[in-house]
C-alpha cells in the first residue's frame, strides 16, 4: 500500500502513431480554446466586446477585394520564407537568419535597380537582379552553414547575428542612396521609368508572389520527399552518425542545403523590393524571418500544412491592424493575441505526441 501511495497519479507515455483526424481535432480544440482565452483577455484589458474584435479581424483580412488580395500576398511571402527555412529545419539546422537573408536579397535587387536601372535593357536588368538577390541570400546562408559544418558553430546564434549585420549593411546603403538627402529613406526606386520593377501577371499586381509561392511549395515538397538531396537532408537531420556510415558527406549537405535555404529567402527579398514595395528599408522583412520559424514548426515541416499555418498568422496579423485602427488600440495588441494563440498551438503538440494515463487505483485493486 505504501508503494502505491507514492505512485504519481498521472502517467505519460509517448504515442506511436496517432490517427490524422485525432491530431487535427486536438489542434482545432487548442485554437478554439486560444480564441476564447483571447476573447476574455481582450474583454478584461480593453473593455471591448470580444465578438466585435473578432468580426473586425475578419473584416481586416477579407473586408474588401483589395484587403483580400493583400492577405494572400502576405500569405505567399510568409509561406516562401517558411519553406526556405523548412529545408534547413529538416536537417535540424535552426536557421533563424531568414530575416537577414531576406534583407540581403532585397539589397541585391535594390542595388541593381539603383546602379544599373535605365542604363541597360530591362530584361537584362531583371535577370541581373534575380542573380544578385539569390547570390546575396545564399551567401548569408553559406557563412553560418560553413561554420557549422567545419567547426560545429551554434547556428541558432550565428544566424541571429547575421540578421543584425544585414540590418546594419542595409542601413548603411539606405543612407548612401537616400533620396532626397537627409530623409533617411530610399523612396520609390525608378518611379518614372519603372526600370527593374517585376512585371505584373495577368494585369494583377498581387498575383506574382502568389504564383511564386505555389511553385516554391510544390518544389519544396518534391525536393524533400522525392529527391536524393531531400533524402540526404533527412538522414543528416535524424542522425549525423548514420549519414557518415552510409557515406553521405555531411559537410557538403549542410552547406548545400543552407545555400538553397538562403537563396530562397533572397528570392523573397527580390519580390518584396522589386515586386511589391519598390523600395528598400531595413524593416522590409518585418519580423517574418522569425514568424516563419513558428509557421514551419507548427506545420510539422510539411509544406502543404504550412499554407494553413501561415494563413493563421497572416490572418491574425492583418486583423490586428484593423483592430488597431477601428478601436483606437495599439498595433501591438495583435502581437499579444498572436502570442497567446501560439502558446496554445505549441502546448497542444504535447497531447498529440503523448498519451496521458490517469491511474485508477480502485480498478487495479479490484483486479
Amino acid at each position, binding site marked *: 500500500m505504501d508503494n502505491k501511495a507514492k505512485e504519481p497519479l498521472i502517467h*505519460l*507515455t*509517448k504515442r506511436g502513431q496517432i490517427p490524422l483526424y485525432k491530431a487535427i481535432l486536438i489542434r482545432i480544440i487548442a485554437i478554439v480554446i486560444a480564441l476564447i482565452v483571447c476573447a476574455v483577455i481582450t474583454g478584461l484589458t480593453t473593455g471591448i466586446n470580444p465578438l466585435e474584435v473578432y468580426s473586425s479581424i475578419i473584416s481586416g483580412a477579407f473586408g474588401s477585394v483589395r484587403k483580400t488580395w493583400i492577405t494572400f500576398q502576405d500569405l505567399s511571402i510568409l509561406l516562401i520564407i517558411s519553406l526556405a527555412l523548412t529545408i534547413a529545419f529538416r536537417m535540424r539546422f*535552426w536557421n*533563424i537568419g531568414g530575416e537577414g537573408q531576406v534583407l540581403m536579397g532585397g539589397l541585391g535587387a535594390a542595388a541593381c535597380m539603383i546602379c544599373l536601372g535605365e542604363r541597360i535593357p530591362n530584361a537584362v536588368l531583371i535577370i541581373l537582379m534575380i542573380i544578385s538577390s539569390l547570390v546575396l541570400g545564399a551567401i548569408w546562408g553559406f557563412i553560418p552553414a560553413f*561554420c557549422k559544418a567545419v*567547426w*560545429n*558553430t*551554434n547556428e*541558432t*546564434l*550565428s544566424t*541571429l*547575428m*547575421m540578421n*543584425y*549585420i544585414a540590418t*546594419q*549593411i542595409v*542601413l*548603411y*546603403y*539606405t*543612407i*548612401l542612396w537616400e533620396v532626397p538627402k537627409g530623409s533617411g529613406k530610399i523612396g520609390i526606386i525608378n518611379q518614372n521609368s519603372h526600370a527593374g520593377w517585376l512585371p505584373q501577371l495577368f494585369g494583377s499586381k498581387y498575383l506574382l508572389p502568389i504564383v511564386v509561392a505555389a511553385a516554391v511549395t510544390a518544389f519544396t515538397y518534391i525536393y524533400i520527399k522525392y529527391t536524393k538531396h531531400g533524402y540526404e537532408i533527412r538522414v543528416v537531420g535524424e542522425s549525423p552518425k548514420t549519414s557518415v556510415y552510409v557515406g553521405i558527406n555531411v559537410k557538403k549537405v549542410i552547406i548545400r542545403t543552407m545555400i538553397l535555404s538562403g537563396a530562397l529567402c533572397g528570392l523573397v527579398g527580390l519580390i518584396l523590393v522589386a515586386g511589391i514595395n519598390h523600395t528598400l528599408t531595413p524593416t522590409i522583412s518585418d519580423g517574418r524571418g*522569425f*514568424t516563419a*520559424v*513558428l509557421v514551419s*514548426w*507548427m506545420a510539422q515541416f510539411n509544406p502543404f500544412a504550412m499554407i494553413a499555418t501561415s494563413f493563421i498568422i497572416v490572418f491574425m496579423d492583418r486583423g490586428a491592424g484593423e483592430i488597431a485602427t477601428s478601436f483606437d*488600440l*495599439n*498595433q*501591438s*495588441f*495583435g*502581437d*499579444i493575441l*498572436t*502570442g*497567446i494563440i*501560439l*502558446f496554445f498551438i*505549441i*502546448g497542444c*503538440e*504535447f497531447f498529440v*505526441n*503523448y498519451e496521458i494515463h490517469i491511474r485508477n487505483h480502485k480498478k487495479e485493486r479490484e483486479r
Partner: protein
Amino acid sequence: MLGFLAFIPRAVAQGIPLLFGCTGEIVTEKSGNLNLGLPGVMYVGAISGVIGSFFYENSVGSGSVNPALAILIPLACSIAGSVIMGLIYSFLVVTLRANQNVTGLAMTTFGVGFGNFFGGSLIKLSRADIPSISLSKTSACFRARLPFSDSTGWFGDLFLSYGFLAYTAIVVALIVAYVLKKTRIGLNLRAVGENPSTADAAGINVTKYKYTATCVGCVIAGLGGLYYVMDYACGIWSNDAFGDRGWLAIALVIFTLWKADLGILASILFGGLYILHLYIPTGMDHMERKELYKMIPYVVTLVVLIITSMRNRREDQPPQSLGINYFREER
C-alpha cells in the same frame, strides 16, 4: 584620457541590462533550457515595473513619493511579470515538452507585444504630447547615487556613479557564479543541464530544478529591463526603445562560455562596443559609416562564437542537454 574616463561610465550603463540578461540566461541554460524568449521577458520585466510605478506616481499626484515604495512597487511588479513569463515557458517546455526554440520565439513575440501594447496604452492614459511615459520621480529614486560619489573625482565617476540596480547586477552575477561553481545546488543544477537522466537517477528532482532555474533566470533578466527604463532611460518608456539588447544578452552567454563572473567584464565590453559608434569620428560627409560601426558588437559576437567553436575545448562547451527536453521514459 578625459574622454576615456567619460566613456567608461556610459559603457557600464549600457552593459548593465546586458549583464542582467546574460546572468539570467546562464542560470536558465545551466538547467538545459535555451530560453530564446529572453528579449520578451526583459520587455515584460520593464513594462511591469513601469505599470506599477505609473499607477503609484499617479496616486501620489503632485506630492512627493516615498522613496522606499517608489522602488519596491516597480521592483515587485517587475519580478511578478518576469516570474509569470518564466512559468509560461517552463510549463510549455518542461511539462508539455514543447520545442524550446519555437516556444522562445513565441514568448518574444508575446513579450515585446505586451510591452509595446501596455506602453502605448499608458501613453494614451497620460495624455502626453510626446509618445513616451516619463516617470521622473521613480527614476530619481532608482538613480540615487551614493552620497560621497561627487566628492571623489574620477574615482567616484568610475565606480560610484551608478544607481543601486547596477551594483545589484554585479552582486547577482557574482552570487550566481559562486552558487554554480561551489554549492550543492549549483552542482545539481549543472547535472540537470548536462545529463538529466543521470541527475534523475541520482535522486535530483529534474522538473523542480528546471522550473526554478528558468523562473529565477527570468527574474534576473527582467531586472535588466527594469534597470534600462528606470535608470538608463531616466524613467522614460517609449515603445521599442529597448531594442535588440535581449538577443545580445543571449549572445553574451556564449561569449562568456556560461561563466557568470566573466559576464561582468564581457557585458561592460559589449556596452562599450554598443556605443562605440558615437566616439568614432566620421565627419558630416560620411554619416552612413556610423551604421557600419554599429555592426561591431554583432561581428565581434559572431567571431567569438566561431573562435570558441574552433577551439572546441571540453570545459567551454554548452550544457550537454541544452535545447533538449527531458522525458523520463525515453530511452
